[in-house]
């Protein structure tokens, strides 16, 4: 099975063989060509590591990375693997150091840019042992990443020939990204979910403007969002990046017609009222009438604005059938106490226990379980047609087709 070469269906981006969600060989190729290859991946917030010596660890795919603020004030990203015998240089998820990065195994010491500065007992002891003359410190630094910034977010890549980050993101998506990251962010808290499904099933879900108001009946029941509301989806030229947006206060059909429509498709419950409506007491903060905006950058970055709930989501593969979904909930430096409280209450909408997101934690696993034995069958992605262009409707799977459009050439399919 994992040695069997994949022939992509001639239908193209509107058909995806289920094998890509479970095949161990395909997964290993993804780690190599996507995550260690020509893609930009989110590392940290630019203001998360303010002082020289601050560091944080993360991953490119499954490969451990450390990001550190150097003495030069710059952020440096490197593989978190010692050049000596491969130990993790930084053991803590986040921390601060005053003397560079020292590997605990044999005390090799690196500066905050990953350059090897000293090797314990390099000259031996009392004239015996030590490193050979041929050993040069400069040949044994930590492997470095390219980093680039956009709207207060730091991305990294191991690829020399990936385009500049702004170009990679594209103008339209870049603008949407900047819209949300409107000021210096402030972390309100973090959480993480272990999803028992392939990482791409979650990414499809994020890009899937079609499912939101059908799977998440809370949306429709409480009129938080409906497909009948105004809105649309934007897809980058590469296909890999997208934004969906909703103008929740409008309804293209009117409430009654909309209710009727949803009643027919049975994801609507009647007569449900919140006993404490403060949960949905949102305020306009982005200078437009967009109430919900979901944005993704290929392959695994997500930025969410649901009313006043703003969060970065990072999708980390942990095997063919397992994924970690990391959440960083944000406020902005200009938030007053009332705004912070508002964001905290609205955080009930998202995350592992979110009223409009908990289903997303499970549905990928439902698919993962359902496709066993159907590896050569395909999903059918025809909502909104066959292309992956921007349009002012969310009743489409265009941004999912866009994902596969970006995925296939990198994987050679």
């Amino acid at each position, binding site marked *: 099975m994992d040695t069997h070469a994949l022939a992509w269906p001639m239908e193209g981006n509107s058909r995806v063989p289920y094998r890509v969600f479970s095949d161990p060989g395909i997964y290993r190729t993804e780690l190599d060509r996507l995550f260690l290859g020509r893609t930009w991946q989110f590392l940290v917030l630019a203001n998360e590591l303010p002082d020289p010596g601050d560091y944080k660890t993360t991953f490119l795919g499954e490969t451990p990375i450390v990001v550190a603020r150097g003495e030069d004030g710059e952020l440096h990203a490197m593989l978190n693997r010692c050049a000596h015998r491969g130990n993790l240089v930084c053991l803590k998820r986040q921390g601060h150091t005053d003397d560079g990065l020292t590997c605990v195994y044999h005390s090799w010491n690196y500066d905050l840019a990953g350059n090897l500065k000293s090797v314990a007992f390099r000259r031996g002891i009392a004239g015996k042992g030590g490193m050979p003359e041929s050993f040069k410190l400069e040949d044994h630094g930590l492997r470095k990443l390219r980093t680039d910034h956009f709207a207060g977010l730091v991305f990294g890549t191991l690829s020399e020939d990936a385009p500049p980050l702004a170009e990679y993101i594209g103008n339209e998506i870049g603008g949407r990204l900047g819209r949300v990251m409107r000021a210096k962010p402030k972390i309100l808290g973090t*959480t993480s*979910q272990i999803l028992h499904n392939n990482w791409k099933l979650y990414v499809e879900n994020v890009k899937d403007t079609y499912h939101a108001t059908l799977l998440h009946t809370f949306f429709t029941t409480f009129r938080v969002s409906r497909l009948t509301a105004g809105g649309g989806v934007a897809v980058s030229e590469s296909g890999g990046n997208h934004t969906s947006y909703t103008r929740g206060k409008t309804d293209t059909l009117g409430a009654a017609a909309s209710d009727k429509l949803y009643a027919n498709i049975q994801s609507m419950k009647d007569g449900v009222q*919140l*006993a404490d409506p403060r949960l949905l007491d949102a305020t306009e903060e982005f200078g437009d009438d967009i109430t919900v905006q979901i944005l993704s950058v290929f392959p695994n970055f997500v930025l969410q604005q649901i009313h006043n709930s703003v969060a970065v989501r990072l999708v980390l593969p942990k095997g063919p059938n397992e994924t*970690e979904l990391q959440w960083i909930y944000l406020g902005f430096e200009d938030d007053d106490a009332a705004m912070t409280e508002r964001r905290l209450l609205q955080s009930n909408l998202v995350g592992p*226990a979110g009223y409009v997101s*908990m289903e997303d934690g499970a549905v990928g696993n439902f698919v993962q379980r359902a496709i066993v034995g159907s590896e050569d069958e395909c999903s059918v992605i025809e909502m909104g047609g066959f292309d992956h262009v921007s349009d002012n409707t969310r009743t489409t799977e265009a941004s999912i087709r866009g994902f596969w459009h970006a995925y296939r050439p990198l994987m050679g399919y």
Partner: protein
Amino acid sequence: MTDLAHLTRRMEIDALYADYAHCLDNDALEEWPEFFTEDCRYRITSAENFEAGLPLGIVYATSQAMLVDRVMALRKANIYEPQRYRHLVGAIKPGAEEEGMLSVVANFIVVRTMQDGAMTIFAAGRYVDRLVRRGAGWKFAAKEVVLDSRQIDTLLAIPL
């Protein structure tokens, strides 16, 4: 306070935590908000957030009515696979009682069982609570569920 009064209060508090566990483990969610005061605060968070002083809650409620809404959403709106919890609560430790407010910390472990029978340790951590007397018993004026882990397996539907 006499020894007997101490012992009696202790029995009441143990009973509160036992009833709370049975309520959640036996799917009597509609009764769950009644363990709280009307102006209660309830938060589920990770030890990481808790110790960093970050205010986020995975679940964040500032009134009993919000707990009622949570139950209603679980019953009427949210979709999740059948599952059940089994709570074990221990090391229940009442602190000082100040102006009718009693602080209590306790340890808990929750085993979650899915409909196919798979069991996992879903949660381990501590309760950091504030209790007030209401008639014969006690209610939670504030409850913080501090999870040792920063990760949630799949989703968190049923409260902790």
